[in-house]
Structures are given as C-alpha cells and as structure tokens.
C-alpha cells in the first residue's frame, strides 16, 4: 500500500482523452457490471497503456467519465501497485523476490539484471527503454525464479536466459513468454519429469553464477 503517497499534480501537463477505440472498449466493459464503477480498474489499465502512466490528467478524465471525484480515482490508483503514476520503461521488468523465488536465486537474478540494464530497481532507464521493479509473488512459484516483462511471464530464469531476453528486446525482436502458456507443457508430475534434466542444469548454472558473484 502506498501510504503517504500524494496525488500527482503536474500543472503543465497535456490533456488526456481516450482514443475512440479505447472509449468504445470502455463502453463494452461498463455494460458488463451492475455498477459502472467496476469498470474503473480496467479503464485505468487502458489509460495507462495509452498514456504510459496514470497522470493527473488521466485521473481527471476518468473521474468525469465515472461521475466520481479525482480523489476517489486516486484512492484506487494508489492502492494497486500495477497502476503507475510515472511512466515506466517500454519494457517494464518485474522481478519476483518473494520466498519461493528468493530460495532459487531471485536476489542474484535481480542484481544481474540491474547491472545488465544499467538501471536500479524502482527506476526507469534514461532512454526510457527499460525499467526494473521488484514485486511480490507473481503466482508462478513452481517456475521460480520468475519475471514478468509487461504482460508476459518468464519462468526458471537463469542469468544467461535473462541476457538473451534483454538482448532480443534491445534489438526490438519479439520474445516468447516461457512457462505456463497455452503452448508450454504442463508442469504436473509428467511434465516436470521431462523438464527436470534441463532444470537441474539451470540450477547448477545459477548456483555457479551465485558463487561467482560472491
């Protein structure tokens, strides 16, 4: 919870208005719920995607649409950590460091990424391409350590794998998520058995890296 966070006033800021497509999408979302307000979080997510952040102009626009005060909107924005009041990078890298991920090297993975990207957790790189954030459990602990980059999950991430992902993103190449995607094998007993060999070598690699890092 963002205790003590302040409503982000930004005087000279441009106005915000939904694109016609997003406005239409919002209309469809609103129609699904007995109370329009239930569309507020999806609306904030849409606006964040469009404007790069939930700015005060965004909050004022949404307050007008929903017929509530900007402070009401702010109350919601400040509650959910996925809603950002300042723009994050084009590729927002979220590293889980809750317990299951920490046990399997999330700490060294985070340090590795900070170095590789030249960007500390909680910051956005000057060129706006990357930002890094440490986050709580992503609900993918069986694939620890894991990352989320924008909407995509990456599981069992080794430092080497992280380098490959970053290199591809830097070149503007698409990167396929790794883990519980429809296309990936399930991680039940059978799936896990097949994966165990690959995983063991990954674990050894990250242990070696950890040693090297001291």
């Amino acid at each position, binding site marked *: 919870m963002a205790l003590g966070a302040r409503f982000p006033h930004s005087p000279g800021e441009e106005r915000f208005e939904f694109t016609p497509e997003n406005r239409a999408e919002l209309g469809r979302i609103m129609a699904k719920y007995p*109370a329009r307000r239930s569309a507020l979080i999806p609306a904030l997510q849409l606006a964040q995607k469009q404007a790069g952040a939930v700015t005060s102009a965004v909050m004022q626009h949404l307050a007008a649409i929903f017929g509530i005060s900007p402070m009401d909107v702010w109350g919601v924005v400040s509650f959910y950590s996925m809603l950002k009041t300042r723009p994050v990078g084009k590729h927002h890298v979220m590293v889980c460091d809750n317990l299951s991920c*920490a*046990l399997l090297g*999330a700490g060294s993975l985070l340090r590795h990424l900070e170095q590789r990207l030249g960007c500390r957790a909680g910051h956005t790189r000057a060129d706006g391409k990357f930002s890094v954030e440490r986050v709580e*459990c992503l*609900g993918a602990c069986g694939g*620890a350590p894991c990352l989320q980059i924008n909407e995509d999950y990456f599981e069992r991430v080794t430092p080497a794998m992280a380098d490959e992902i970053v290199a591809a993103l830097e070149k503007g190449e698409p990167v396929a998520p790794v883990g*519980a995607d429809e296309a990936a094998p*399930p991680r039940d007993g059978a799936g896990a058995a097949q994966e165990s060999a690959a995983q063991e070598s990954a674990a050894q690699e990250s242990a070696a890296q950890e040693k090297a890092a001291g």
Partner: protein
Amino acid sequence: MAIRFEKIVTGRFGNPEASTLAGYEAAGGYQAIRKILGKAEPKNVIELVKASGLRGRGGAGFPCGLKWSFVPQSLNPKYLAVNGDEGEPGTFKDRELMIRDPHQLIEGIVVACYAVGIAKAYVYIRGEFDAPWRAVERALGEAYAKGYLGENILGSGFGCDVYAHRGEGKRGHPRLKPPFPAVVGLYGKPTVINNVETLSNLPHIVNNGAEWFAGIGIDEKNTGTRMYCVSGHAARPGLYELPLGLTCEELIYEHAGGMRNGKALKAVIPGGASAPVLTAQEVREGKVRMDFDSLAKAGSMGGSGGVIVMDETACMVQAAGRLARFFEHESCGQCSVCREGTGWVSEIINRVEAGRGRADDLATLASIDPNMRGNTICVLSDACAMMFGAFLKKFHREFEAHVEQGRCPLGSPYPA
C-alpha cells in the same frame, strides 16, 4: 487404508486442445450441465456437493455445499464471486486452471449458479494475470456462442451470465463481518465466494457422483484431490494433483523428486505463506499428512495448497523476513494493529537478519504476536502473526544466533 490415485481437475492438462471449446467437449466436457440443468432439483445439487465432502480450495477449507446453503433463497439478485486472485505466496494453481482448462471452470460456475439460483457470476482475476484473463475471456465467448451461457441454457429454462472481473473499482478493503457475504456481498447482494479450483471440481462430482469423489482422499472430511503447488528446494518443483491425505514426505520424496542436490530437508510451509512452518522433524516424526484436518492437528493448515520446501541451506530468519514484507505490502491499512504490526514485524525481522538486531528485538516480536490475532476486520493480520509466530518459536535459536553474532550465521544465502 488405501488412497486412490486419480486426477480430477488437471486430468486434461496434457491435452493442449482442452482449452478450446471443441477440445473440452471432445474430452467429455459440458456433460455435467446436460445432466442436471432442468432435470435435477437445485437443492439436490447442493445435497450432492455436501455429500461429496468438497471443501474450499482457496484457503479456509470450508465445506462448499454448506456454504451454499447459507444463501437466503428469497433474496435476489444473488451473485457468485469466483476467486482467481491467487494472492497467497507459494500458490500457482488457479492460473494454470484458467489457462489450461477454462471451460471446466465455466461449467463448474454454471453448476454452482444452478444449485444456488444465481444469475450472474464474476470471475475476479488479479491484475497481473494477462494470459489467464485472455484464456477466460476467449472461453466465455465460445461458451456464449454455443449456448452454454446466457439465457435458457440448453433449453433448460435456466440461464446465467458470467463475466471476467477486476474488482468493484474500489480500494481493496475487506469489509467487517457480519453481515457475511452470503447475505451482503458483492454490490451489497447475497454472494457466494468460491475459489477457482473448488469450482473446477464440480463438473466431475456431477458426472461421477458424490461417492466417487469421497472415495478419493483419506476420510469423509478430506475428500478428493488438491493441486499441491510445490516450490523452493524440491528437485522437481511444480504442480502435483494428488489425493488428500498423502504424507508430506511422500509428496516431496516420491512425487516432487526429493530434495535438490540431495540436501537435507529443513522446513516446509504446507499451505501458502499464512500456514505456520513445519520443521523437518515434525514432518518426519509426525508423518504429517497433507489433508486439511491432519495439517490443522499438526498446528498448521492446508490453506491454499502452496507447499514451500526449504533445505538445510535456507535461513529461517530470512524466510520469515521475506514473508513479513509481503504481509506489510498487502495490509490494506484499515486496522491499526495490522497496519502497524505488519510494518514493525517486517522491519524487526529484516533488521535481525541483516545483523542489526537489538537485544530486546525477539522479546518485542513475541509481544506483538498476540495483539495481531483476533482483533482485525480480516484475518490477514492473524495470518502474519501465525507465520512469524511459528518461525520464531520453532527456530528461536537461529533468531538468537543472528542477534548474538550480529550477522546471519548462514551467510544470508539469498541476498536481496
């Protein structure tokens, strides 16, 4: 007794077509609603679920049929809130259920709505979950197109609508109970709240009967399977759907491949971050079983099914510190004991771990614990107290050693 091994909710996980409507139908899907809609009395469906012994898989393990029977029949509209928040650290099952078999969940939702007389269901999916959201949205579209949702489903006269949902558009503030959600819930209306895995079991109970379901598991109060989410130092972390009543050692050593690199087991958190930690000795000597009641008897809980396995290299102060930070982050701040308590607990434990512990820190922790229990709007505060209370009690020497030596005796194996 012999435990019967049979997969229920993950039975189609190996079949990549199962996430589509055609694949789900080909694998026997949407037969349960054909069997009951307009044919079985709703109250008999509630009785069926009661007889199956199905308990909630979201955390509290409350009997599902009994929960349904608390909803006043005369009040309308009523809602079903499907809990797909998967917020408990260590848990990663509902995400897979939504991605791999979304129609199973939808069919379960229709069964629940029919039994309780509900016309609208909302599937709450956490904001980070994009792939599950897309999978559920796509499946909902398919189900509507085929007439499995909407008005007059399969000509039965019964209809219900299901929507993916991201909350009421408010801060996530738990509400004081009573009134209970069964009477005043979502949008102020009577609401059944069920977990994704709980609901995914329903089509199978309808198809195969209560007796079949109750025959899997260890006794009449612990029936069916659980999706055990094994993470941490097991050799093969992953999702294991196994009957309730297997021992913790069987789960780790026979199913999850034992311990990584042959290390010794030190501790297990058996039911997500809120479940009190068990020591290796407790697990071994008590032959602790992984069903709801056995875990409660062992002083912990089945919770959300998240099984976090830790080997001898793990530092228990560090583990408690990580979890404490989660509770601090999740506290909504309405209750001062929770807001202040989770903050202090996290600060003190992480200070002890960093070697900056003070002589009286452990006594302070012990004194915060009772205040955090039983005094708040929801049980997040109690969960935090249960978590660190168990670590502090069972690994007290390790906490003391941190303070005495002014550093982590295990060398802070997992630096932040």
